[in-house]
C-alpha cells in the first residue's frame, strides 16, 4: 500500500503497529505462532498417547503379511501378500471405479442434459424429474438401494439367469465370456494404440494443410478407419482366434469369464447416476449460455448444422462446461470412498481393515488422505490442461 508516504511529514516512528508493513509482519508472526503452538500441542499429545498405548509409529507394518482376503482385484493378490500390496489393490480398485464411473457419468449426464432441452415435452419433463429426484437424495442411500436391488432381485447362483449364451445373472453379479488368452490380443491392443497415435498425427497434419491450402480433410472418418481398421488387420493377421473363456458353474460360484460383482455394479451405477444428475445441469447451462446469435451467425456463414455445432456452438459451450464438470469428477472420485459401506474393497475399505488389524491409525488415515490428494491433484492438473487448451484465445 502507499500509506507510508503519509509518514513524510511526521517524525519517523520506529516499529509502530500503525505502520502497515510492521502490522502485517506482526499479525503473520502471531498466526504462524498460533498454528505452530496448536501443532506442537497435538503432536506432543499424540506422541504421549502413543507411548502410553505402546503403539510403534512408522510404515514398517506395510511389509507384514496382510492375512485378509480381498473380494476383487485387478492384480494377483492372496492373503499371504503384504499390507503394502493390499494397499496397491485398494488404489487400483478405487481408480477402476472412478475412471469407469467418470466416463459413464459424463455420457449419461450429457444425454440427460440435452434431453432437458428437448422440444419433446415428455422427454424434457422426464429428464427434469430425473435430475430433481436423484440429486436431492443422499448418495449413500442410493448406493444401498442399488445394492439391495442387485442382490435381492437376482436369483441365487444355482438358478442363475442365462439370457445369452455364456452370460449369467445371479446374486454373485454378472458374468460374461471374454476371449481366451492369446498373444494375438496383445497385438490387437498395440494396434489400437497405434491407431490413436496415427489419428492424432493425422489431425495435426490436416489442420496445417487446411491452414495452408484451405482444403478440408475428413479427419473423423479417417480416424475411425485407423482406430478400428488397424486392430482388425492385426486380428486377422494373427489367425483370428475365436476361442472364448466361457464362465462355468463350479460348486457355488462361476469360474472363468469376466465377473462384474454386485458391489462393484452397485457403486458404479450409484455414483454414475448420482453424478450424472449434476453433470446434466452443467451441460444444460453450458448449452444455454451460447447465445442464439451464434447459431444464426454460423448459418449466415453457410455452415451446415453439424459443422456449426462442432465448430461454433460446442467449443463455446465446453468453455462453460469444463470447469464445473471437473469438480464433479473430483466429487465422484471422493464419493467412491462410500464403497466402504457396501463392501466394495476400495482404498478406504482396505485401509480400514488394515487400521483395525494393526492399530496404525495415524499412518492409515494419512495414507487415505495422501492417496486422495494425489488422485484429486492429478485430475485437476489434467482438466486444467484441457481447460487451457479449449479456453478462449484472446489478443
Amino acid at each position, binding site marked *: 500500500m502507499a500509506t507510508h508516504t503519509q509518514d513524510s511529514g511526521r517524525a519517523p516512528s520506529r516499529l509502530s503497529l500503525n505502520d502497515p508493513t510492521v502490522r502485517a509482519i506482526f499479525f503473520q508472526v502471531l*498466526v504462524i505462532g498460533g498454528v505452530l503452538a496448536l501443532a506442537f500441542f*497435538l503432536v506432543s499429545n499424540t506422541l504421549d498417547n502413543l507411548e502410553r498405548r505402546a503403539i510403534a509409529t512408522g510404515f514398517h507394518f506395510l511389509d507384514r503379511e496382510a492375512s485378509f482376503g480381498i473380494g476383487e482385484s485387478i492384480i494377483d493378490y492372496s492373503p499371504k501378500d503384504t499390507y503394502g500390496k493390499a494397499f496397491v489393490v485398494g488404489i487400483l480398485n478405487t481408480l477402476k471405479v472412478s475412471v469407469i464411473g467418470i466416463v459413464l457419468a459424463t455420457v449419461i449426464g450429457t444425454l440427460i442434459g440435452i434431453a432437458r432441452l428437448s422440444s419433446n*415435452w415428455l*422427454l424434457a419433463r422426464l429428464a427434469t424429474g430425473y435430475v430433481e429426484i436423484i440429486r436431492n437424495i443422499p448418495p449413500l*442411500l442410493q448406493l444401498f438401494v442399488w445394492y439391495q436391488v442387485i442382490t435381492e432381485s437376482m436369483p441365487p447362483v444355482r438358478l442363475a439367469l442365462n439370457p445369452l449364451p455364456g452370460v449369467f445373472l445371479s446374486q454373485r453379479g454378472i458374468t460374461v465370456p471374454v476371449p481366451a488368452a492369446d498373444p494375438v490380443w496383445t497385438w490387437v491392443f498395440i494396434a489400437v494404440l497405434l491407431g490413436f497415435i496415427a489419428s492424432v498425427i493425422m489431425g495435426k497434419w490436416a489442420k496445417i494443410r487446411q491452414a495452408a491450402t484451405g482444403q478440408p480433410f475428413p479427419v473423423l472418418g479417417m480416424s475411425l478407419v485407423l482406430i478400428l481398421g488397424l486392430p482388425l488387420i492385426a486380428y486377422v493377421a494373427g489367425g483370428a482366434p475365436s476361442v472364448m473363456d466361457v464362465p462355468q458353474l463350479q460348486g457355488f460360484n462361476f469360474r472363468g469369464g469376466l465377473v462384474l460383482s454386485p458391489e462393484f455394479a452397485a457403486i458404479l451405477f450409484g455414483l454414475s447416476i448420482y453424478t450424472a444428475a449434476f453433470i446434466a445441469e452443467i451441460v444444460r447451462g453450458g448449452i444455454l449460455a451460447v447465445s442464439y446469435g451464434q447459431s444464426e451467425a454460423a448459418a449466415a456463414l453457410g455452415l451446415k448444422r453439424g459443422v456449426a455445432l462442432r465448430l461454433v456452438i460446442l467449443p463455446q459451450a465446453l468453455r462453460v462446461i469444463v470447469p464445473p464438470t471437473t469438480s464433479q469428477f473430483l466429487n465422484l472420485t*471422493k464419493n467412491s470412498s462410500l464403497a*466402504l459401506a457396501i463392501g466394495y474393497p476400495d482404498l478406504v475399505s482396505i485401509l480400514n481393515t488394515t487400521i483395525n488389524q494393526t492399530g496404525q*491409525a495415524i499412518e492409515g488415515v494419512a495414507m487415505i488422505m495422501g492417496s486422495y490428494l494425489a488422485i*484429486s491433484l492429478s485430475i485437476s492438473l489434467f482438466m486444467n490442461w484441457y481447460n487451457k487448451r479449449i479456453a478462449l484465445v484472446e489478443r
Partner: protein
Amino acid sequence: MAGHVDTASSTAAERPPALSLGPIGWMRANLFNTWYNAILTVLIGWAILMIVPPLFRWAIVNAAGFDATSPQCRQATGACWAFVNEKMRFILFGTFPYAEQWRPLLATAIIVATLAAAANRRFWKPWFVAVSLGALALFGVLMWGGVLGMTYVENSLWGGLPLTLILSVIGLSVAFPFSILLALGRRSTMPAIKAICVAYIELIRGVPLVSLLFMASVMLPLFLPTGVNIDKLLRALVAFILFEAAYMAEAIRGGLQAMPKGQYEAADALGLNYWQAMRKIILPQALAISIPPLVNTFISTFKDTSLVIIIGLYDLLGTAKAALSDPAWRGFYREAYLFIGVIYWCFCFSMSKYSRWLEQDLNRGHKR
C-alpha cells in the same frame, strides 16, 4: 376442404383450426413435431405404461394394511406400509426413550421452524442471530432434559432426524465464523496467512468426508491430552465443522470476489480500517451474494450426514438400516428406503428451490 363454403357464411365466427390449437395442437407441437420426437414419445409412453401401473398396484392396490402383522405382509404381493407404521418412531427418533419422544419431535419442529424463518429476508437482522441461538439452546434443553422435570437423556441415545439436523445445523453454525476468516485469509495480501488458509481449504476439499470422519473417530482421541475423552457425536461434529468450514469459505470467497473494486476503494476513502471496512461495507454485501451457494453447501452437508453411519452413529439412514435388521421385519427395505428417501428429498428439494429463487431475487436489482 373449404371449397363449398359460400362467401356469406365466412363472415360468421370461424372455428379455430383444430389441428393447431387445443390439446391436439399442443400434442402436435410438443410431442409429435418431428418424426424422431414422435418415436421418442411413443417409446416413453410405452415405458411409462410398463412401469407406472405395476408400481401403483405394488404401492396401493396390493399393499397390506397399515396395521397388518409381519406374516400378513409377507403374504401380500404389494408394499408393507405396516412396517413403516410400526417402525416410524424408531426411524425418526432412534433409541430416544419411547415415552419421551415428544421432546425430539418438538426440538425438530423448533429447528425446522427456525430454518424456515431464516429463509425469509425480513428476518435477516442482527436480532435474528440471538433468536437462532435461543432456538439451538431450546433444542439442547429438550434433547438432554435434566431440567423442568424432564429426565436426562444422554446423547448416545439420540438418533434419527434430530441427529441428522443437529449434525448439519450445528456444523453449519460453528463453521460459519471460521469460514469467513478463512475466506478473508485466502484473499489476504499477507503471504503467510494466505498460504495457511489456502493449504487448509485445499487439503480439506481434496479428501473425502469419510477420511475426515475416520480421522475424527480414530485419531482425535490420540490428539487430545490423556484423560480427555469426547463422545462419538462430538467427534463427528468436529469432522463436519472442519469439512464445512472449508467448503463455506469457498462459497464466501466467491461473494468477496464478486464485489466491485469500487466498494473497497470507497471504504478506504472513508478512512475505515480493514475490519471496519469488512464489517460495515464488504461483508454485508458479499455474504448476501454468497447465500445461494451457502444454501447449496448446506444441502450437500445435509445429504452427507448420512455418512456418520460409517462411524457408528444412527442418523436417519442409520436408524432405517437398524429397523431393517429386526428379524420380524427383515426384507422390507423398499418401504424403509422409500420412507427416508422422501424425507431427505423434501428437505433438500425445498432448500434447492429456495436457493434458486433467492438467486433470482437477489439478481433482480441488476436486471432490467
